[in-house]
């Protein structure tokens, strides 16, 4: 923007001749490059500044002169080359930056002393409150998670809220901002809303008290029929097609649309919400729900996919809707899956059927939770061998839509990680205990609200052991293979396997809204907030970024601790004889998992999978039709990758054994 000057008497005359009026022309200022002929049928109220308008904009494929046409403008600063036309009521109290287009809008107003959605408190999980998350523009999933879930520490919460309130106070203003190159077209009422650079709002019905963050690299889109209040949308998000949002946060690259309603909920990076009703939900990264009749309520999700008609109850008509559900990362629900809350469903678990018990089984990840004759049954570890799990691990990083320069949500995509592996280790101990205590005459055991068939207890132990071996030993051998330079002695090999840092132990890990983080690091982080040594919310965000960068190191620390408990030596203490045993153990586990995943994949190409294909023809055409639509088992990219990995096991074993031989 440039320096502004008063209008000349000739300019005022021209404006009046062109149908313009002003409360006081002395309050209207313009800058160099202002073309008075490009302001028509416009009324000015209060102090208005107008920049250069000599350029053109393109709207609906037409080049049109910048300027102000058929509008009322009150107390606004308008940048260079702005196009404003057909304002039903008024644009009031806005800074409108360069290159903005505002056309066919009912009204855009900002009242005094507003925070544009910052400071709004969202009641996640417990509808009656208690886990409120205070919104602010740059909030990420980790800060939201700490607000919602670390309520046990009131000193931490108090200081955290102070940091957030300080941030919110800086957002307080008595004018809104439409940032450079934003477009607001064919919209209804816009009230107390900040709009970021390059954002596109088209056909929005009503938006109030919010911020639309946006950037040139990833513009945010708000489309037809959208109604929103008390909200923050992040860069590259999209809210479209009749979506209704009230008290909501939409993360970077997330999409909401097709009449989805979102209330008191947070949807973090790359989530997709269509058709569904979402109420008091903490939707961590990659929460996906696409179907009508689906209700997600009072629950935590991430990396998930909800089948049609998925539903939960958080209300037992006693103390109100107070129950909460936790669906750890990677859960999927089948059509009409139902869970009664409270419940805690383990990571990477498929929920099929209606579950009327309060299920609490966090230590059994990768399971199937099935309904059989009204009872909930658990098949532990079966999803370790699912092609779907392998595919998920591939697709999430590949589908990260975020293009903004700063990716706010810190995400670790690993399926097998200290978080899931430590749970499997605990789950295996529970299964072992249940197996030893259950008489052979018993058909089932009851644990955490589910029935487990006694015969399957040992299977669960076996499956978890395979996955634990594959992960711990696989990572150990990765480390050895990555060592730079040829080892001259076995001590060199061992040295490269040492763990540094204070978090080098087998301990609890958490999934803080997509960030896998050790309990020790969380405690340190909370202490730095609690003690007052952290002075701003951006410093806290920096700590989460640091935790993300340190994941590899922390993971290795965890592996060293768990490795010692599993195999009797730390990685840095393994001698060649044990090394060879471990190579064999890893190869066996890796091979078995590969074979079982490939077998699981075969079912996707079996005669069952071909039902209804080639329906008007014979068997040959059925097969051809199936191949044309679904491809072949051999040609499937996931299958090909698995086959390559299986082949790699053999060559890896050879190389590792050579290494052990060299130093024997």
């Amino acid at each position, binding site marked *: 923007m440039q320096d502004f000057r008063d209008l000349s008497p000739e300019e005022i005359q021209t404006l009046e001749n062109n149908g313009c009026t002003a409360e006081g022309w002395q309050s209207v200022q313009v800058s160099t490059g202002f073309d008075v002929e490009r302001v028509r049928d416009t009324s000015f109220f209060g102090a208005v500044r107008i920049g250069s308008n000599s350029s053109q904009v393109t709207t609906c494929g037409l080049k049109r002169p910048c300027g102000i046409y058929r509008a009322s403008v009150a107390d606004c600063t308008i940048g260079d080359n702005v196009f404003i036309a057909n304002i039903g009521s008024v644009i009031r109290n806005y800074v409108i930056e360069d290159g903005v287009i505002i056309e066919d809008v009912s009204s855009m107003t900002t009242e005094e002393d507003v925070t544009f959605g910052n400071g709004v408190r969202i009641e996640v999980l417990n509808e009656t409150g208690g886990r409120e998350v205070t919104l602010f523009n740059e909030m990420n999933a980790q800060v939201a998670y700490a607000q919602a879930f670390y309520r046990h520490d009131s000193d931490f919460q108090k200081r955290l809220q102070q940091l957030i309130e300080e941030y919110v106070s800086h957002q307080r203003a008595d004018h809104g901002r439409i940032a450079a190159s934003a477009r607001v077209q064919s919209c209804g009422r816009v009230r107390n809303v900040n709009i970021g650079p390059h954002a596109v709002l088209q056909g929005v019905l009503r938006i109030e008290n919010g911020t639309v963050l946006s950037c040139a690299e990833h513009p945010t889109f708000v489309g037809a029929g959208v109604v929103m209040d008390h909200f923050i949308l992040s860069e590259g998000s999209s809210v479209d097609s009749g979506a209704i949002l009230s008290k909501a946060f939409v993360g970077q690259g997330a999409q909401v649309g097709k009449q989805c309603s979102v209330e008191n909920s947070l949807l973090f990076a790359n989530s997709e919400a269509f058709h569904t009703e979402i109420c008091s939900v903490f939707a961590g990264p990659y929460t996906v729900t696409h179907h009508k009749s689906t209700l997600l309520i009072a629950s935590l999700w991430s990396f998930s996919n909800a089948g049609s008609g998925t539903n939960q109850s958080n209300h037992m008509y006693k103390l109100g809707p107070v129950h909460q559900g936790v669906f750890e990362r990677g859960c999927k629900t089948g059509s009409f899956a139902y869970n009664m809350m409270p419940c805690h469903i383990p990571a990477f678990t498929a929920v099929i059927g209606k579950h009327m018990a309060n299920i609490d089984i966090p230590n059994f990840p990768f399971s199937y939770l099935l309904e059989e004759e009204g009872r909930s049954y658990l098949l532990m570890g079966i999803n370790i061998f699912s092609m779907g799990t392998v595919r998920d691990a591939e697709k999430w990083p590949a589908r990260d839509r975020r293009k903004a320069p700063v990716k706010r949500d810190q995400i670790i995509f690993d399926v097998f990680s200290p978080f899931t592996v430590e749970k499997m280790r605990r789950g295996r101990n529970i299964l072992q205990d249940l197996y030893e205590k259950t008489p052979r005459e018993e058909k089932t055991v009851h644990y955490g609200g589910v029935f487990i068939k006694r015969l*399957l207890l040992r*299977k669960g132990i076996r499956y978890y052991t395979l996955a634990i071996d594959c992960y711990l030993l696989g990572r150990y051998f990765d480390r050895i293979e990555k060592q730079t330079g040829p080892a001259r002695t076995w001590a060199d090999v061992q040295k490269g396997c040492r763990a540094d840092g204070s978090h080098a132990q087998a301990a609890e890990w958490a999934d803080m809204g997509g960030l896998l983080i050790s309990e020790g690091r969380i405690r340190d982080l909370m202490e730095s907030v609690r003690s007052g040594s952290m002075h701003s919310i951006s410093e806290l965000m920096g700590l989460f970024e640091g935790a993300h960068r340190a994941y590899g190191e922390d993971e290795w620390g965890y592996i060293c601790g768990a490795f010692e408990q599993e195999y009797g030596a730390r990685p840095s203490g393994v001698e060649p004889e044990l090394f060879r045993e471990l190579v064999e153990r890893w190869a066996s586990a890796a091979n*078995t998992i590969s074979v079982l995943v490939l077998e699981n994949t075969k079912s996707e190409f079996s005669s069952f999978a071909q039902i209804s294909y080639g329906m008007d023809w014979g068997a040959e055409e059925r097969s051809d039709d199936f191949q044309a639509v679904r491809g072949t088992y051999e040609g499937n990219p996931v299958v090909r990758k698995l086959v390559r990995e299986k082949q790699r096991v053999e060559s890896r074993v050879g190389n590792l054994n050579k290494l052990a031989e060299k130093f024997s």
Partner: protein
Amino acid sequence: MKKEEIAERVIRVTARELKMSEDRIQPEHHFAHDLGADSLKAIELVAAFEEEFELDLEEEEALKVKTVDGAVDYFAELLPE
């Protein structure tokens, strides 16, 4: 163990786990196609065989057993007379 005994026990376990009468089970029956053992039931069936014959089966090997006859042959090899 005698093959006849193995066959008898395989059929008994199969009938119990798949909830059907023993006389409906024929040696040539395919566990999935003829007896309706889907992939999840198959896991239970393998676990039941493991307990019945007090064996730990390698998953890769167990996958190769598709029919009742095949199961009898497989266990007969593991449990020689």
